[in-house]
């Protein structure tokens, strides 16, 4: 394990002050479930090796799940276990509760945080597609000020965000889904527990008199940066959702995957599977029955 100095801060102000001076040689410690694995992989002369580990896990003001004017506000230090079991999240953003309940195993969810999941920026992150279909916004603070962004806009490439060394994620916020909104989240892994998502999918569907009024589709581990796939959403928007249209939406997602990522060694597997996964997630959200054979 590499050497570093360990600094613990209890308030946001102290954290921002430290990052203003030393942010570029500091890594943040929240839950540690991604950080410690990364640190183990570093050698002493690695340029990515941090000089300081800043333990922010004790900053109480970053740990809440709150209702705020028709929105839910989630502190980045909230552990996945708390989000998965939160009455507020289960009611107003069920796909997020489901997503967080699939991350790692019990041991990871106890201490791992939603902020850490976002900042690690893995294309296979589970909370991220769920947050994207909630049109989540994130807030970053620094000693210099504050900025807000749509969550999906912070990802530059796999494992990289546009977060500056002096910035700290302080809030994740999204509007509560209206009564009657339907959501789904499906994770495909090599095993049922403690698995990285081979692919995952989050959807939100809002119907008005049987017609799709609003629909949001975000697949994970499918495109280099997570996003909503509008071209698939448009297949169903303003229409009565039928099994045929749902299958077409799935095909649009696979076409978009290939357009953005190119044809890769994984494409023969991912193409039919993402189509089926999207269709299954939409049928699940809409409460449609699963047939024995996909037609």
């Amino acid at each position: 394990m590499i050497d570093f100095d360990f600094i613990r801060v209890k308030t946001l102000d102290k954290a921002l002050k430290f990052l203003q001076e030393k942010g570029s040689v500091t890594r943040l410690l929240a839950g540690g479930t991604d950080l410690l694995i990364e640190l183990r992989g570093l050698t002493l002369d690695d340029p990515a090796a941090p000089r300081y580990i800043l333990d922010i896990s004790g900053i109480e003001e970053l740990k809440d799940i709150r209702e705020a004017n028709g929105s839910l506000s989630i502190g980045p230090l909230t552990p996945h276990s708390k989000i998965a079991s939160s009455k507020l999240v289960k009611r107003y953003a069920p796909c997020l509760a489901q997503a967080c309940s699939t991350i790692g195993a019990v041991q990871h969810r106890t201490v791992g945080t939603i902020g850490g999941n976002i900042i690690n920026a893995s294309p296979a992150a589970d909370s991220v597609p769920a947050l994207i279909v909630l049109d989540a916004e994130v807030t970053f603070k620094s000693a210099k000020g504050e900025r807000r962004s749509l969550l999906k806009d912070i990802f530059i490439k796999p494992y990289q965000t546009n977060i500056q060394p002096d910035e700290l994620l302080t809030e994740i916020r999204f509007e509560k889904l209206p009564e009657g909104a339907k959501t789904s989240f499906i994770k495909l892994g090599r095993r049922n527990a403690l698995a990285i998502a081979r692919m995952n999918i989050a959807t939100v569907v809002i119907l008005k008199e049987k017609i799709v009024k609003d629909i949001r589709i975000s697949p994970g581990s499918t495109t280099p940066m997570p996003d909503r796939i509008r071209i698939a959403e448009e297949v169903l928007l303003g229409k009565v959702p039928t099994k045929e249209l749902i299958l077409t939406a799935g095909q649009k997602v696979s076409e978009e995957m290939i357009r953005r990522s190119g044809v890769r060694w994984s494409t023969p597997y991912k193409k039919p599977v993402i189509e089926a996964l999207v269709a299954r997630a939409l049928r699940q959200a809409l409460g449609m029955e699963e047939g024995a054979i996909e037609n």
Partner: protein
Amino acid sequence: MKKIVLKIKVNGKKYRLKINPNFRLLDLLRDQLRLTGTKEGCGIGECGACTVMIDGSPINSCLVLAGQCEGKEVLTIEGLEVEGKLHPLQEAFINQGAVQCGFCTPGMIMSAKALLDHNPQPSEEEIKEAISGNICRCTGYRQIVEAIKGAAGKSG
């Protein structure tokens, strides 16, 4: 690398330790406190052999820096025995043949204890989910699930 001072409670005993900041909780427990019941199976949080409880919740001690545990209470497998009497989970594991090589056992028992502390009468599905972060290469898990069922309702 500046050493840090850590105040921590382990198995009910208070410690004030001066440690290297790059110690994981696992290193603190095994190397410094000589509590070698907790095992390192993979070091990357994928096997659960290092599972201990912090403030009542199960975590992988290979993924936690010791410094993160300031002011916290840690419970390891050694903390289950009370005045020479084994915990019902430990008894059940022995009686049900749930211990073969024994390497996964401490972590498995800590995950089981975390379950029973919150849910004294779990279903078989709930038991399987509670231990889904712990890998066993010997038993095939059946005896482990039976042992946890047997211990359920008997733990205080």
